[in-house]
């Protein structure tokens, strides 16, 4: 039991510093010693969500809520998993339970703000975030969330001030870096925004918020390149299953176009469509690798400019 607690503490440390694989390893050790440790299951679910292993995260979250229904962490994980599955009704129920049990926790108010954003109730978000700030005025995550809200509503000066404050408290905070990037981009400082986006991507090269920022920056400098970045990040965001559905739909359209062109006796058009499809096939194989290479180059170029 003592050993499992030690592994759990190490896992929490690894999670805090962003080493998710290390955290998973420690949690597996903890659960090998004590398979009924609800807290370890809950942390494991959080780690698996960060690794985008949703199916396993759902299983671990279920074990956490079964073994420790009274734990706040179990409810938090259940809410996060429900949000990841886009089951907003269940997520809302868990968030309300969290806020009823521990209204003093700013993270739960932020989670509610995120839920409001995802359910399209953006105009109800501000009082929730302000309550989170009242509870913890120096919490960089809350400041970053407020900054992102003001950047969205066009109050750029306010957004920038809040992001600056968040970065003064925690210079490496990913949410704050992204918020500052958006504030700078809306203020017309593309280079500054890019630097912040790259800094945010350093911890997680596929972090959706930071990628969305970098994509918008790309679009400003080159609309064609920006369109490609939009497409590539969209494919990353929707995940492999939906990407395959998109490709299958494209295949059906391609085959239908060829059949119709052939039936109308337009062999030239059919050949043209087939050549275009060959391009799509080649791109679907090399596209993701090209995108990751472009992203890596972005990260390296900013790194080199600093030295």
């Amino acid at each position, binding site marked *: 039991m003592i050993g499992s607690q030690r592994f759990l503490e190490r896992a929490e440390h690894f999670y805090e510093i962003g080493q998710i694989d290390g955290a*998973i390893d420690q949690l*597996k*050790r903890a*659960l*090998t010693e004590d*398979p009924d440790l609800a807290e370890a299951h809950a942390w*494991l679910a959080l780690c*698996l969500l960060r690794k985008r*292993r949703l*199916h*396993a995260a759902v*299983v*671990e979250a279920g074990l956490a809520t079964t073994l420790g229904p009274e734990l706040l962490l179990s409810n938090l994980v259940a809410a996060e998993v429900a949000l990841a599955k886009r089951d907003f009704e269940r997520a809302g129920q868990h968030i309300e339970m969290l806020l009823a049990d521990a209204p003093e926790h700013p993270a739960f108010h932020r989670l509610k703000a995120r839920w409001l954003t995802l359910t399209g109730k953006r105009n109800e978000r501000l009082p929730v975030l302000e309550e989170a700030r009242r509870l913890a005025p120096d919490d960089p995550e809350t400041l970053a969330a407020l900054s992102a809200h003001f950047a969205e509503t066009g109050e750029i000066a306010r957004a920038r001030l809040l992001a600056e404050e968040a970065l003064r408290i925690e210079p490496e905070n990913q949410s704050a870096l992204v918020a500052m990037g958006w504030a700078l981009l809306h203020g017309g400082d593309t280079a500054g925004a890019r630097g912040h986006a790259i800094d945010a991507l350093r911890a997680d090269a596929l972090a959706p918020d930071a990628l969305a920022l970098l994509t918008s920056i790309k679009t400003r400098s080159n609309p064609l390149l920006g369109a490609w970045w939009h497409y590539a990040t969209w494919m990353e965001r929707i995940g*492999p*299953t939906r990407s*395959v559905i998109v490709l*299958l739909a494209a*295949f*059906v359209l391609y*085959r*239908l176009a060829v*059949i119709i062109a*052939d*039936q109308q006796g337009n062999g030239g058009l059919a050949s043209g469509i087939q050549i275009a499809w060959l391009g799509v096939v080649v791109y679907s194989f090399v596209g993701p690798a090209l995108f990751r290479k472009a992203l890596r180059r972005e990260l390296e170029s900013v790194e080199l400019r600093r030295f």
Partner: protein
Amino acid sequence: MSGYQIADEPAPSTLARYAVNPLYPMLAAMLGGVWFAWPWFAFNSFAIGSPTRRAELAWLVAGLIVPPAVAAVLISAVGAGMLPRASGPYIGLCVVVLKLVVVYAVFLLQSRTIEIYEYYGGKLLNGIWPVLAALYVGDRLVADLPVLLFLMLS
């Protein structure tokens, strides 16, 4: 990989040394046909001890039954005059798409497991030679079978 096992982690068998990246069976399905690719998918699944192997097998079995069944119904409809004679290419497309759905579904399920398998140090064989063999043999082995069996295995 001993100790606590996460739900999506594989439990490799002694055959795991013959496992390949599921990209190769997928290519074999496209270049050679189902008769070669689907047993290969099934073998791969058992070799790495995929936690989703039941779902993968269910997809493969459904993929053997549903496309020829749909084709049989549509061909009968053409025979009965319910569909125009020119719908042949569309029926063919329907069969191909149904098979592709199965191929992609199994590929996606196996890919997740293979990623984790490799993360824990699991080694994979290069599957290009069986793919080339499938490309060379193609549909020749099943070409003389009755239509429905051909639709099932090609």
